[in-house]
């Protein structure tokens, strides 16, 4: 049975990289005494899959991992046990049982929502609040991406699903699929470039708010949180 676990990553743990988060959970499920399933073979490993890697320096309220278990008592019990085994900086928010046909966490990711704030004194020089709507309405949003072999010009437009002011912060919903992943910083850089400004060093505070999967079609997407495809309150 596959359980989808949603967690939050905050505070000093934003300095822990994705591989270290994986290693943390491999050990946490053991401390929690969860009956996790292992692959067969000479060096078995836990059957576990993480949704979208989160960069160092970002916080998140919507991280996901799937874990295959042989048995469990309830989703609530899994949440409690994992929180007991966790540390300040990682909090388990929910657990749901995935239906058999559900794809794994990583393959399921279609989009992610982020809130982005500028650090004090590192805001853009222009009236960025006033220009957001106009920027988002542009037909093309060019971005110069650094690649291994130099730079490449790409168009971010089709991968930005929302870009709006929410209180103090910019909310953006971006393509986070493995093929078309867009980082929030890329969008801000494109935004500033459009107004002849450049981003100051370490100017952004970014929180991933939620990770989404597409339950609609390619043409008519319907984005729902990754946890929405699972069943809550399931008892074994």
């Amino acid at each position: 049975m596959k359980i989808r676990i949603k967690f939050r990553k905050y505070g000093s743990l934003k300095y822990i990289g994705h591989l270290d988060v994986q290693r943390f959970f491999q050990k946490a499920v053991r401390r929690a005494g969860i009956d996790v399933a292992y692959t067969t073979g000479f060096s078995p490993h836990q059957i576990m899959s993480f949704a979208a890697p989160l960069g160092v320096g970002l916080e998140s309220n919507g991280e996901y991992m799937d874990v295959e278990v042989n048995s469990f008592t309830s989703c609530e019990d899994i949440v409690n046990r994992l929180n007991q085994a966790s540390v300040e900086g990682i909090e388990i928010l929910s657990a749901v049982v995935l239906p058999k046909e559900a794809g794994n966490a990583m393959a399921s990711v279609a989009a992610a929502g982020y809130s982005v704030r500028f650090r004090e004194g590192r805001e853009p020089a222009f009236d960025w609040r006033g220009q957001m709507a106009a920027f988002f309405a542009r037909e093309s949003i060019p971005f110069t991406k650094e690649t291994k072999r130099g730079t490449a010009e790409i168009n971010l437009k089709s991968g930005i699903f929302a870009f709006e002011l929410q209180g103090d912060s910019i909310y953006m919903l971006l393509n986070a699929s493995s093929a078309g992943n867009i980082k929030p910083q890329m969008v801000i850089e494109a935004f500033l470039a459009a107004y002849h400004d450049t981003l100051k060093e370490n100017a952004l505070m970014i929180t991933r708010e939620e990770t989404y999967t597409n339950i609609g079609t390619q043409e008519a997407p319907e984005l729902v949180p990754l946890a929405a495809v699972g069943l809550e309150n399931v008892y074994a």
Partner: protein
Amino acid sequence: MTAQDKSCPEGMQGSPDAYQRKLALSDDILMKIEKPARYIGGEVNAVMKKKSEVDMRIAMCFPDVYEIGMSHLGIQILYDMFNRLDGVWCERVYSPWVDLDAVMRKEKIPLFTLESQEPVKNFDWLGITLQYEMCYTNILQILDLSGIPLLAKDRGEAFPIVIGGGPCAYNPEPIADFFDLFYIGEGETQYEALISLYRKCRRDKLGKKEFLRRAACISGIYVPAFYEVSYHEDGTIASFSPTEEKIPAVVVKEIEKEVSATYYPKKPLVPFMRITQDRVVLEIMRGCIRGCRFCQAGQIYRPVRERSLEMLKEYAVAMLQNTGQEEISLSSLSSSDYQKLPELIDFLIADCSKNHVNISLPSLRIDAFSLDVMRKVQDIKKTSLTFAPEAGSQRLRNVINKGLTEEDILQGAALAFEGGWTRVKLYFMLGLPTETEEDIRGIAKLSNQIAAVFFETVPKDKRINGKVQIVTSTSFFVPKPFTPFQWATQCTKEEYIEKAYLTRNAIKEQLNQKSIKYNWHEADTSVLEGVLARGDRRIAKVLLKVYEKGAIYDAWSEYFDNEKWLSAFSECGLDIAFYTTRERGLDEIFPWDFIDCGVSKEFLKREWQKAQKEEISDNCRKACQGCGISRFDCGVCVEEHFDEG
């Protein structure tokens, strides 16, 4: 006291209502430096306490980078021990890596501990573990970044008491000027007494000097400020004596006699990032019965004391449960000599296999038993077998008292090859006393013979990839205090390098040379390691000088700068050769002679003389050699085993 009594009280670690910690480093810095996870603390099983509930703050330091320091068992034992004590909060600090070091100097950020993220200079004690000589400049880095004056004499009441411990404390003299006191021997026994004394002196406002004066009378404690040294004209020591009447002339090492009923962490720290030894470590015994003559650990940790099977089982289960680690490693100087090893391994295999825990078994003698065990717990295709003959010829192995014969090695190799292993690692030392060219050629010959054994043992159609891989590594022998070789002359850099070339060329001449890969160690660091290992108090000014020139992380070849060291020595008017290649007389007073490590100088002298005669000494279980440690009345010295013959 039983192991149970000292287990950690519930609810002390990582309480959920612990305040959200403010990090000492800004986000700008943490995002700019390599591996910020080194500096944030907050790991699983890190101990947080309320400041209002503690009156003793101890910063425990391993003066090297986080990944190395966090891999060290000793600190985990002391961290757990101190934090079990009421009112004591022990936190950790490691050397900032060179990138952060530069930032901290530039922005004047004081060095901080990982748990509370507070400046080290506000602590009561700063304990520094001394595991290898090449970390000595990092001690100065730690003090300097903390804002603590480097010399103990310049530190007033306001600064922490700086304490040194660990194997290098057995010759503390080169770094004596930087420390307020040294703890000689095993930490489990006297720290409680030292803490009580500290609290009393603080309460009665007696001052640091009086605390140190009284501390010097606690067994195992050495306070350098209360001893003075005078030198002969030739630079050797004329006298070494206390400056006050009540201060003991000899400092006797401390040992934990009840190793099965003492402190050991049931909840070791689990780092977020990958570290060098990323596993649960079960220390199965202290000490070694073997008595290899080059080995300091084999002498200073005497006598051998085994932990009980019951304790080890209990702790193995608890540590795996509390850490969630995927691997457990048995730790000791010679695990094959643990008498209940088969029972322990059976238990671990049965218990661990159901939880998918790997077992790692370093320091096993290669024989039918160990190969059988390794086959059960390791993937043969992925692992290599390690032999440590240390010397290339039987003659030289007799000199060093390494009780491993060519027959043992070749038979072990044959068994291993039959069992499917194809990779073998061999460890040797170059520059051992009495070594000849013939002995060095022996390294190449033995490597070749092992390859030949493979081709003889494994039929062509059964050879995986058709090959055998022999990796032969040599390090340079460095004479260490409290070993029979403490009188030995050390090689020069040129001699070391010549020996390495000779080894390489001899390997190239072998029939199976294509199966043998040869690695050797750098010579410059070995020379300096020797100076620091057998150095005296005068070395402190060289350390200060070389640190001024910017030397840190000398244990890391990419940062070691030999030129800085050479010029520091010449500017201080000290001669490296005095400490390395000089012939030491049997009656010379050594800088470390005031320490009683339990093994007598007479015994070491006897062993040194037997070495010259190529005579071996039996191990402790076979026949007592009268080293002097039996007066501690524990461990192998009180076992009933002498009838085994």
